[in-house]
């Protein structure tokens, strides 16, 4: 019989990737619409894009680690269909927010 479960890190970092994609897009809108956010990011790393990249990568690592520690260290539980759907939804939503913002919002 074929095994159908995936590791807790596959689920936790997959969810984290979806979350990071959406936060990435929201951070674009926040920094482009709010000069204080942009100036703050510039101050953190010397260049707003470097700060932006670092924030998203740290969020990805942190939430992946956090989700893996949920349920007493067993990690978050969900079906693979739901995991794939969440990753797709996160990436597509993040992508559409960024494209839509520079197409019509900026």
């Amino acid at each position, binding site marked *: 019989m074929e095994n159908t479960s995936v*590791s807790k890190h*596959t689920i936790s970092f997959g969810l984290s990737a979806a979350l990071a994609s959406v936060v990435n897009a929201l951070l674009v809108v926040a920094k482009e619409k709010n000069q204080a956010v942009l100036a703050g990011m510039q101050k953190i790393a010397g260049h707003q894009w470097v700060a*932006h990249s670092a924030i998203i990568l740290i969020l990805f690592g942190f939430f992946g680690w956090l989700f893996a520690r949920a349920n007493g260290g067993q990690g978050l539980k969900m079906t*693979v269909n739901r995991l794939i759907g969440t*990753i797709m939804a996160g990436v597509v939503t993040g992508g559409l927010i960024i494209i839509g913002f520079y197409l019509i919002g900026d």
Partner: protein
Amino acid sequence: MTELILMAHVLFGVACMITTVWIFVDVLHASETNQARIRRMSWAAAVFMWLAFCIAGYWYVVFYKVDKAIILKGPWAFAHSFFMETKEHLVIMLLVLVTYLPIATSNNLVANKDARRVALWVAGLIALLALMMEGEGAIIAMGVKVALLAK
């Protein structure tokens, strides 16, 4: 020298894309004989993308302002205002996904159909996003070219 930096980032970006397509095909035919290769190639894709990202990031922060000024004065100002602006942020999503790929392929792909499905979706997304980045990069380069030709 700046052109070499620019071309190196394209080279590693293309290497990541080709490697990911390779992984996609290998996962479709996952077996005991190619599972170790899939995992090695997943790490290779991540390393290629991190190299492309760091090299491009250095070029973007240090040198891009000259190209940006040229593009904005030319007939293809959208090469910066839309394509560069979206590329510099979409590529962060690509980096996150390609960093996740070695985790997705660390499961037993031979015995586990669900693990193969996750790996296929992630590899497919990476390949499409990488192709999109290459296209946007080409438009940005063309933005500089048409601006210089218009002078």
